[in-house]
């Protein structure tokens, strides 16, 4: 397979475009949750989608993707709002609030999944694909849907950029301005839920968490402004998605196949590690160089001071 095939082949192009779009949306929106110290909200939402997916299946009796994603989105949103409520009404911290909601929702989802399995319905076989993701199944229709949902999520974030920014960095000021702070927080969480729903089918539950976090961590290394970070995180996410899809499709002609989701996540992680090490101002290497320079100057001054 040549790189040209990737661009001309209808199926391959869908997979490549879909993965890049997912990375773009997840990377951009993940910036908010990473800055809010709720990085793992993606993990919560992705796990908590399971009971909703099962409920949607029980109600409709089909594996229609849109219905399942809608069900998953509703239960994911319910879980994340519950986590926000726990934070507001108790002394428990982010990690406990997220952990409680996702393990309870996921547990109920597993119970529903086994109950559906025992009912012997043939169509249930595909439900667990949502847990592990399957980029190879992406169609052009999926890509169009991703693009529409992604545009909706990113457009909302862009329209409310100022409000979201102030709510994030200075909630007290936002409150004084008379803005609905809990509402704005819930809205940015809802956008994250949307991003997770877009990615669930492609990279699966566990790996979706990484697509929100890794691009944002990488972007933070290169910029000090929120808009710069949002843009860079989106770009890093899209790059990881494209790399993941390209690599997995390029290699899978061999004995085994490389799962797209896992390769995408490793690509995003590699970008983050590289940025942590090599970014100009905040990078580990830059820090070492700086320390060495300071030490040399100090030594020089001590020496010349001794002579004077």
């Amino acid at each position, binding site marked *: 397979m040549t790189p040209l095939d990737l661009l001309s082949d209808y199926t391959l192009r869908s997979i490549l475009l879909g993965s890049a779009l997912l990375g773009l949306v997840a990377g951009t929106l993940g910036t908010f949750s*990473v800055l809010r*110290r709720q*990085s*793992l909200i*993606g*993990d919560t939402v992705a796990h908590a989608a399971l009971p909703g997916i099962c409920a949607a299946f029980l109600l409709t009796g089909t594996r229609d993707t849109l219905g399942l994603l809608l069900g998953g989105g509703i239960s994911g949103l319910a879980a994340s709002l519950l986590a926000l409520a*726990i934070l507001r*009404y*108790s*002394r*428990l*911290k*982010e*990690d*406990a609030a997220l*952990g*409680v*909601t*996702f*393990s*309870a*929702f*996921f*547990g*109920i*989802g*597993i*119970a*529903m*999944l*086994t*109950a559906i399995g*025992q009912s012997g319905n043939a169509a249930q076989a595909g439900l*667990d694909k949502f847990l*592990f993701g399957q980029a190879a199944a992406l169609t052009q229709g999926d890509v169009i849907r991703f693009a529409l949902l992604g545009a909706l999520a990113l457009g909302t974030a862009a329209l409310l950029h100022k409000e979201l920014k102030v709510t994030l960095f200075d909630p007290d000021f936002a409150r004084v301005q008379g803005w609905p702070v809990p509402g704005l927080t819930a809205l940015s969480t809802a956008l994250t839920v949307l991003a997770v729903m877009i990615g669930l089918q492609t990279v699966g539950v*566990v*790996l979706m*968490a*990484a697509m*929100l*976090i*890794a691009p*944002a*961590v990488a972007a*933070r*290394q290169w910029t000090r402004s929120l808009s710069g970070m949002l843009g860079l995180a989106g770009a890093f996410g899209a790059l990881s998605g494209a790399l993941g899809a390209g690599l997995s499709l390029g290699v899978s002609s061999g*004995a*085994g*196949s*490389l*799962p797209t*989701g*896992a*390769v995408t*996540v*490793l690509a995003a*992680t590699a970008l*983050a590690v590289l940025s*942590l090490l090599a970014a100009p101002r905040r990078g*580990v290497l830059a820090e070492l160089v700086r320390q060495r320079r300071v030490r040399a100057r100090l030594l020089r001054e001590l020496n010349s001071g001794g002579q004077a």
Partner: protein
Amino acid sequence: MTPAPLPLNFDLVIVVTAVFVAWACGLLGLFLVLRREALLSDAISHSALPGIVAGYWVTGGSLATMPALVGASLFGLVTVGLTALLTRSGRVKADAALGLVFPALFAAGVIAVSLNYSNVHLDLDAVLYGEIAYTPFRTGWLGLPVAWLLMGGMLLVNALFVGLLFKELRLSTFDPGLSRTLGFSPALIGGALLTLVALTTVAAFDAVGAVLVVAFMIVPPATALLLTRRLRQALGLTLLAGLTASVVGYTVALALDASITGVIAGVLGVQFTVALAGQAVRARRVRGRATLGG
């Protein structure tokens, strides 16, 4: 002559296994939640996958329990170490560091499975869900269930750890600075705690699956901390919540013919929700009285 298996009732084996896991996890989980490290249990349960694959590879493709446990525990410690390294670099907050490490390790595990064992039944579902219903069929020493030996042992170790080092644990959790001044190393105690968490997580998901381990580690302690501010009472409430959820969850799961671990996790969630609602009502009443009195 092999000893005849003890005439143990299936229900008893399963419920006692669940309670062992609940208590072994809850004892450590309370301190994890207090230290804001609750999600480490989730992270470890996922990043253990490459360790399980490595154990499988080293033994030349047999699903032996011991090598898998050793490999998984090692990767649990790798997770803890890498997360600490990233956090200490000061460039990433603790939650993002964790979220960077465990999906990457899990992804590496998924790739290793699909490259080498795509035609072998190395079941991801079995690793993640576990199946407590099979515990009565696996018996070991004295004809006792393997899950009892493993989790009973883990419970004993954890109980000794928390019992003997209660004062030190409490101090290093609430006031690491003072603890250091008094000559206890909070880093050492924290390290020991996280090592036990890694071992317990891995040992437990052989018996009951990752879902329930994480649920037992986080939810009962969180519920207890809603109800009391005293550490000893919280410890007692954690154990009580784990016990009742195991018994009620098992009964309900039998009635519904659904996953036992899933239903127990659900019951834990219900317990938490009731406690949260109770606390909210009480807070409102106190506030109401304060305004009336004022």
